[in-house]
């Protein structure tokens, strides 16, 4: 079980969170400059690292914030947890 250190609530166990998919950039603003194939690539091709990757977790049964978690997919060790919109 993961222990996710919510920057607002402190360390809480995985039961309180919902996994919300791998990190990706915000949907591009300027769609006119984007080719169809680039947009489909943006929509469909996720990060799939065997190693360190970033993903969204929602503190659903806690403060309700979205968090950006950096986690190693080989060990499930969490390296950092920040508010998703902070950067």
């Amino acid at each position, binding site marked *: 079980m993961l222990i996710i250190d919510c920057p607002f609530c402190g360390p809480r166990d*995985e039961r309180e969170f919902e996994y919300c998919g791998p990190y990706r950039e915000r949907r591009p603003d300027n769609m006119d400059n984007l080719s169809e194939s680039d947009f489909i690539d943006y929509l469909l*091709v996720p990060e799939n690292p065997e190693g360190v990757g970033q993903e969204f977790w929602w503190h659903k049964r806690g403060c309700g914030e979205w968090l950006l978690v950096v986690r190693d997919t080989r060990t*499930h060790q969490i390296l950092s947890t920040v508010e998703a919109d902070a950067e």
Partner: protein
Amino acid sequence: MEKYSLYSLVRNSFTQHRDWSPAWITHDLKKNYDVIIIGGGGHGLATAYYLAKIHGVANITVLERGWLGGGNVARNTVTIRSNYLRQESIPFFIKSVEMYEGLSKELNFNLMHSRRSMIDIIQTYPKLREIKRKMYVMDIFGATYKPISVSEIRRRIPTLAGGGNDSRLPIIAGMVHPEGAVNRHDAVAWGYARAASSLGVEIHQNTKVNSLLRNDDGTIRGVSTVKGDVLADRVAVAVSGHTTQLTDTVGLRLPLRSFNLSAFVSEPVKPMIDVVVNCPDLGVYLSQTAKGELVIGGAPDPGQSFRRGTNQLVFERTVGAMLELFPSFKKLKLLRQWGGTVDIAPDASPIISETEIPGLYITAGWWGGYKAIPAGGLTFANLIATNTPHQLTKSFTLDRFETLDYILEPGTTTRV
């Protein structure tokens, strides 16, 4: 290939079983092959077998990172079924289930294949609607999926004492899929390996492929392995769960994510369940092996994973769900548990396809791909040999994603 039979068993017993010949032959790794298959799991070995058997390709090698039967082919819960929803999927899975039924004979290897029937336990109305729809579509293609009453479910599965009217989710309906079956997973890997080896296929264990190699004109050149470079005009990736690790090395971008799926096995007990029980609303399914153990499966770990372990939360949820329906199982001890890495496409349908790199083929996105091994191998071999997709898998190509023509498949039971 030494033929396995009652006669050979008796004959070998006179020499204390010391003189059996090896099931597959070990070779030195060559520099060139006609076809390189990466991954010695069910799909890779079956593909090699059908390439040699049907298409007469002689010079094939299978390169396996670990040992034969160390991947998902021997980590799964062996549920074989064809109750899918899409017209693209059902004929493919019907074919695969049929092939399994004759496979022990074809491979001369006892797969302990056992047709069991699978019973789906329905506890919510949305699931009931979905399942009725599946029934109508399956009917068109000739797969069987029939409603049964709750009392009939309880008659066929006497240990199913939970899910009554006073429970959180009372059982409201059930479906029987008589084609549902189980068999012995290692035997599938070993059987295909032995049959392929006897047709001249070279199997190399402990031969991890680190990257794919391309020629200057963009076509595939071969692979770079821990034992040096190996070249071929045709390279087939069948590495279940690790596909993007290889395709990334040539910049091929694929819509796949990898997850950890786990299984739990109880101590062996006397026969008490002779069907595969699937409870989609609670997210647990189980069957009993010939040895008497319960094999229990549940949901994947949340979040992408290559860990091949078990998650305490998934364990609690799976076992908790099982005890809601089978309260007497709380006395059982669980003996073993493990995980496996499987990858999945956004529409939950498989990919059997050529790629933008000429000569490079992939078979991937096998979430419930154990049942698919015979037909998956057959159709992938056809693609590699003829460069055209097999009739049964012509929809499962990569170009569907270019146009977002998803084959959304809820029959691939998962919520990721």
